[in-house]
């Protein structure tokens, strides 16, 4: 779309986002993507405390239970269930998409655990991290992302995505675990399948956010799909309810750490969803994939991984990290132009027309505003019950948890926690000021 065409569209549709507002939303989206990377990386830390030996489905199910608790607690605290219900009533068809996306996530997460078991993290991680490249493809094909963008932005997004993929590969090889490859072909296929599933999961994400739904509303039903699918998988592959219960009760001393991992992961995922909403799949997902850098920082600085590594391995780590950071920087500089944003709005209007969503709701939400949905953010008794029950469950698991028998560097741990919290505060306050979490 040329500048002249944009001007024509602007005259016909005064609801288009103004350039200063567009810049603000873009910056917030990019910031959310980077913050998502920090929190998704930090989510790996509690899982490192767990002694291996649990079955992949038990690990995945327990993490998903933690995810479920967080996905209901945080939206209830921030928006209130009445606001979420009013938001969902604007586009009820998106409940189907949310549950579908949750099912995709649950199967993909289970596949990654099998992949790590069979080929090790070094091979599996870059393979499933290819999800961002597939996400870029879906963003271009289905949602008009990069349409109307100049060649520099195309080059920035595609080149940055490839750089990050190359950096991730180098990092993963360098941080190779000592897990022997049990069945290479099966592990590689599992990792690739997980990448395809996560990459495709961004279709429902983008569909919801083009329509205008708040990520805090979308995730409440997303997690129903996650927990439902994961429960079915766990019952199927554990040999039934009693066998699953035996495994869970046998692992009760470590379940808290997996729940905590799931809870932290949700905070990262929420920022990732806001990144998709305001920066698009093509920018938001590659930026949030910097989680691998953060995971590596936790591994090296806090858990003492690679302390006996050779010089060449350390060089690979530094080189891979730099390449990944450069890739993220290139993508962050490839901001959305006005003409590309006009194409996004065309895609949004198509969605609204197809599913009968009010156009003023879609226009307001794509601009990060509230829109009239007939509800305000307030906490009711139901919200406090949700928060209270979730907190009690987490405290219950914490009471039976055992302190991990693993040495950590407390100083670095505090430094990384402080950095991660600082990013949460900065991105959260910027998001609140710009969009009120819409």
């Amino acid at each position, binding site marked *: 779309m040329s500048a002249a065409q944009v001007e024509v569209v602007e005259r016909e549709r005064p609801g288009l986002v103004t350039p200063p507002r567009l810049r603000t939303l873009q910056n917030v989206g990019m910031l959310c993507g980077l913050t998502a990377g920090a929190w998704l990386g930090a989510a790996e830390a509690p899982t490192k405390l767990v002694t291996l030996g649990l079955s992949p489905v038990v690990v995945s199910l327990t993490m998903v239970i933690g995810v479920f608790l967080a996905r209901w607690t945080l939206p209830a605290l921030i928006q209130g269930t009445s606001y979420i219900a009013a938001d969902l009533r604007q586009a009820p068809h998106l409940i189907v*998409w949310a549950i*579908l996306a949750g099912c995709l996530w649950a199967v993909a997460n289970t596949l990654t655990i099998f992949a790590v078991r069979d080929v090790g993290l070094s091979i599996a991680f870059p393979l499933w991290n290819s999800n961002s490249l597939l996400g870029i493809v879906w963003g271009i094909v289905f949602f008009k992302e990069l349409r109307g963008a100049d060649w520099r932005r195309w080059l920035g997004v595609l080149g940055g995505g490839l750089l990050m993929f190359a950096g991730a590969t180098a990092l993963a090889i360098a941080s190779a675990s000592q897990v022997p490859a049990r069945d290479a072909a*099966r592990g590689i296929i*599992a990792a690739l399948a997980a990448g*395809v599933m996560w990459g495709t999961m961004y*279709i429902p994400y983008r569909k919801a956010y083009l329509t205008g739904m708040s990520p805090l509303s979308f995730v409440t039903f997303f997690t129903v799909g996650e927990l439902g699918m994961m429960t079915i998988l766990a019952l199927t592959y554990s040999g039934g309810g009693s066998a699953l219960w035996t495994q869970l009760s046998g692992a009760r001393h470590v379940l808290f750490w997996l729940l905590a991992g799931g809870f932290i992961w949700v905070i990262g995922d929420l920022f990732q969803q806001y990144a998709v909403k305001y920066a698009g799949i093509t920018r938001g997902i590659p930026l949030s994939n910097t989680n691998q850098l953060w995971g590596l920082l936790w591994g090296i600085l806090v858990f003492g991984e690679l302390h006996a590594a050779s010089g060449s391995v350390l060089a690979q780590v530094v080189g891979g990290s730099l390449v990944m950071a450069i890739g993220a920087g290139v993508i962050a500089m490839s901001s959305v132009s006005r003409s590309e944003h006009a194409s996004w709005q065309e895609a949004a209007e198509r969605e609204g027309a*197809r599913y009968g969503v009010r156009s003023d709701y879609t226009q307001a939400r794509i601009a990060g505003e509230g829109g009239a949905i007939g509800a305000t953010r307030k906490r009711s008794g139901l919200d406090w019950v949700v928060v209270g029950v979730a907190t009690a469950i987490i405290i219950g698991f914490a009471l039976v948890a055992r302190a991990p028998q693993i040495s950590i560097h407390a100083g670095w741990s505090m430094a990384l926690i402080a950095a991660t919290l600082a990013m949460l505060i900065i991105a959260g306050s910027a998001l609140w000021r710009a969009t009120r979490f819409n």
Partner: protein
Amino acid sequence: MMRHLRNAASPLKLCRPTAPATAVTEKPMSDVRPSRSVVKAILTDLQFWVPVAVLAGGLMVLRWIS
């Protein structure tokens, strides 16, 4: 003559239009409620079937490797 002009457009523009042009402008597409049901809209949406197909494929891979 008056009756003719009021009921149909005059190619010769013998008189002013009887109503402002905006009154006959179509509403934007986004304001039009779809006549199809939501279920039908979902089932005929390619963006629905791509994730469904990928989910089915992922379940088959999981069954194979586990």
